[in-house]
């Protein structure tokens, strides 16, 4: 009669859950789990031993809740994405459309909308299922909050960079277009029209080093993608420059040497722009698709914020998404805290808004640069080009 688990968990799943998040389920936390059951384990036990002992115990609803809660919190740390609708919309129109969409939502979803100042917020709570994951991550209750920041001539729509977030925005957008009987003009941070790897990299280096009212503190992680042959040939055709062709030929030779081995690379460390491996990859035609950096804000307390920006589709450089989840602030003594903590939601929202706006401006400036330079794009890059 033993069947498929619907609610309860196996010892193996509990063990995996504890071991899969060692930074959260530390030995101290596992000891506390024991204490909650009135059992004190030895401080000499390591995490695996404690996790094994705890996993053999019975987990009722009260015991499972904190673990479920932790893993659902992880799920909430989604990145953000945004589009700009270049049309004058109004709250009443959007509210009416949101309510219409809500009435047609699936029973398993909780779909609400409300006005927040000049903005309209559409919120969907839904369950995401993925049976390939750890049991606690298989079914996660998630939230997709879509915000319409309504301006006089355009509306910026921010959403979680998830399939659900994009689905909600697409549904709302279709409804608006149906009502208006017109196609809306959409602006996105998108480098699909800029295949040049140098310019793609320039976008990220500008984003990190020229983020307004801040100074670049460090670059921690960079993902690079090898440029494909089509983009190389396009560049060759457009440039018509013998030197460039030679350079590309040289690049192609190097690519051949690593063909099938290195299509992408992920670097992590400190001051990555200054590393020879980054410079070498850049010269081979690799371009940045994801960057994690820290900026020191020029404001009271000079908090150091950790940002991430990336393209979900690394080939085409589309589906831009970004995050700003943690920062390091100063203590009352003036020294910085040792560790990074969560950014309060209002400040986080402000930083994300600034990042999105700056990313949009940066893409526009690079696109303008490309257009004005025509085929004579300066391959050495601009002021922000890492050297």
């Amino acid at each position, binding site marked *: *009669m*033993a*069947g498929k*688990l*619907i*609610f*309860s968990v*196996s*010892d*193996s799943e509990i*063990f995996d859950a504890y071991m899969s998040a060692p930074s959260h389920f530390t030995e*101290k936390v596992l*000891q*506390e789990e*024991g*204490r*909650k*059951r*009135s*059992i*004190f*384990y*030895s*401080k*000499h*036990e390591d995490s695996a*031993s404690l996790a*094994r002992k705890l*996993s*053999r*115990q*019975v*987990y*009722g*609803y*009260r*015991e*499972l809740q904190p673990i479920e809660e932790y893993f659902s919190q992880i799920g909430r740390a989604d990145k953000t994405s945004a589009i700009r609708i270049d049309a004058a919309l109004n709250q009443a129109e959007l509210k009416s459309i949101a309510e219409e969409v809500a009435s047609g939502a699936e029973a398993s979803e909780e779909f609400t909308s409300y006005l927040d100042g000049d903005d309209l917020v559409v919120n969907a709570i839904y369950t995401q299922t993925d049976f390939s994951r750890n049991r606690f991550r298989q079914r996660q209750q998630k939230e997709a909050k879509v915000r319409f920041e309504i301006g006089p001539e355009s509306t910026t729509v921010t959403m979680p960079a998830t399939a659900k977030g994009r689905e909600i925005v697409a549904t709302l957008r279709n409804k608006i277009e149906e009502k208006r009987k017109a196609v809306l003009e959409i602006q996105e941070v998108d480098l699909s029209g800029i295949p040049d790897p140098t310019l793609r990299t320039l976008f990220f280096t500008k984003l990190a080093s020229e983020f307004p009212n801040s100074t670049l503190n460090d670059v921690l992680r960079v993902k690079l993608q090898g440029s494909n042959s089509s983009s190389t040939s396009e560049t060759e055709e457009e440039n018509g420059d013998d030197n460039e062709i030679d350079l590309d030929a040289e690049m192609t030779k190097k690519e051949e040497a690593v063909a099938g081995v290195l299509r992408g690379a992920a670097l992590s460390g400190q001051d990555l722009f200054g590393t020879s491996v980054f410079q070498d990859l850049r010269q081979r035609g690799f371009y940045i698709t994801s960057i994690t950096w820290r900026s020191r804000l020029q404001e009271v307390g000079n908090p150091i914020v950790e940002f991430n920006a990336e393209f979900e589709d690394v080939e085409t450089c589309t589906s831009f998404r970004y995050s700003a989840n943690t920062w390091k602030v100063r203590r009352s003594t003036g020294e910085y805290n040792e560790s990074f903590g969560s950014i309060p939601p209002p400040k986080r929202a402000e930083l994300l808004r600034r990042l999105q706006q700056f990313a949009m401006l940066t893409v526009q400036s690079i696109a303008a640069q490309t257009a004005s330079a025509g085929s004579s794009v300066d391959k050495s890059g601009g002021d922000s080009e890492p050297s």
Partner: protein
Amino acid sequence: MGETANIAEISAKVADELFGRFLWRTQGPRDLNWPCEEPEIHGKKRKSKKTVPAAGDAARSAEAEPESDVESETGSTAPVVTHPTDVVFYYDEPYSNHRTYINCDLKSYAAKSIQKGEVRKAVNSLARALTCLEKSTTWRTRYVANDKTALYAGMLFVYNHDGEYDSQFDELLADISLSNLDIPRNSKIIVLGPRDIFWLDNVSDHIARMRGDGLIGPPEQTRFFYPPLVLAKNVQPSARAATTEMLTGPWIILKHRLPAALKESVVVFYRGKGEQIEEFSLLIDYLMFHGLVDEGIDILVCALMPDTEAKALFVKAIDDYILRYDGGDEFTLMLKAIRYQSMTQVRRAFSTTEIGMDRGR
């Protein structure tokens, strides 16, 4: 001598009327001290909160006391360090070929006397005893059989004899520093507070009454339920007793066979309040997943002081599970046959007097 008589009284009741029903066994003499194996550590003087004079043993001894459980013979210049044992229980582990021995410290306090300092002191005393008992020839000779590898645990049993303790005992436990608690690796300390004891006593009493009514089979036809686990598939046949983990867990499952019955029956003692349907959904799924819901198996779920809506939620959880599982008519009948009942509350007097305050632990 009065204290000793009280300890004998409480230890007998605890052993026979409480843990005996959970199939724990006792071994060796009760209420005896045994020599410390690390007197140089455990016997060192604890600094008084007052300033200790820089020199002079006499002055120090006036303001310092032997650490925790240390007991010294009157008139002796060098204290004889010992650890106390009120009673030792043992049971066989379900998922390993080990026998767990529990060195028990029985306390009986009035509500106003249950203070965090007392609890912390007692837990530290048990930790020190745990570090010594494995090395102690005296302790092992008295309490340990040689036929199985032993695991050691300490148990602090904090009984509230006036029945007026209604505070959060958990908060007292939270005050104990884990980093300062030196429990040997693979050992553990279990602390049962007034609410745990109330719960376990009610379960124990319910088992006794059901057995008296012929609803539960005799002890030799009884065992507590341990399912094969993914990471520990072999359940030891000799493991019939409820482990400390089961006693402090969300439910206790007893399997028993009535005379002439073909299959074992199941009694689930559910500790939660039953305030949310999910509590019961999870329990039902546990029973299902571990193969306890089957044709001819009688299942009774007993709850102590449940929420007024608990029974309705239990029925709803069953109906909900049937819908989700979609297992057909036979399966529906088996799930619908699971019975639910509230337990009658009892409050037994294990002790009527204070035990523990003046024992120097």
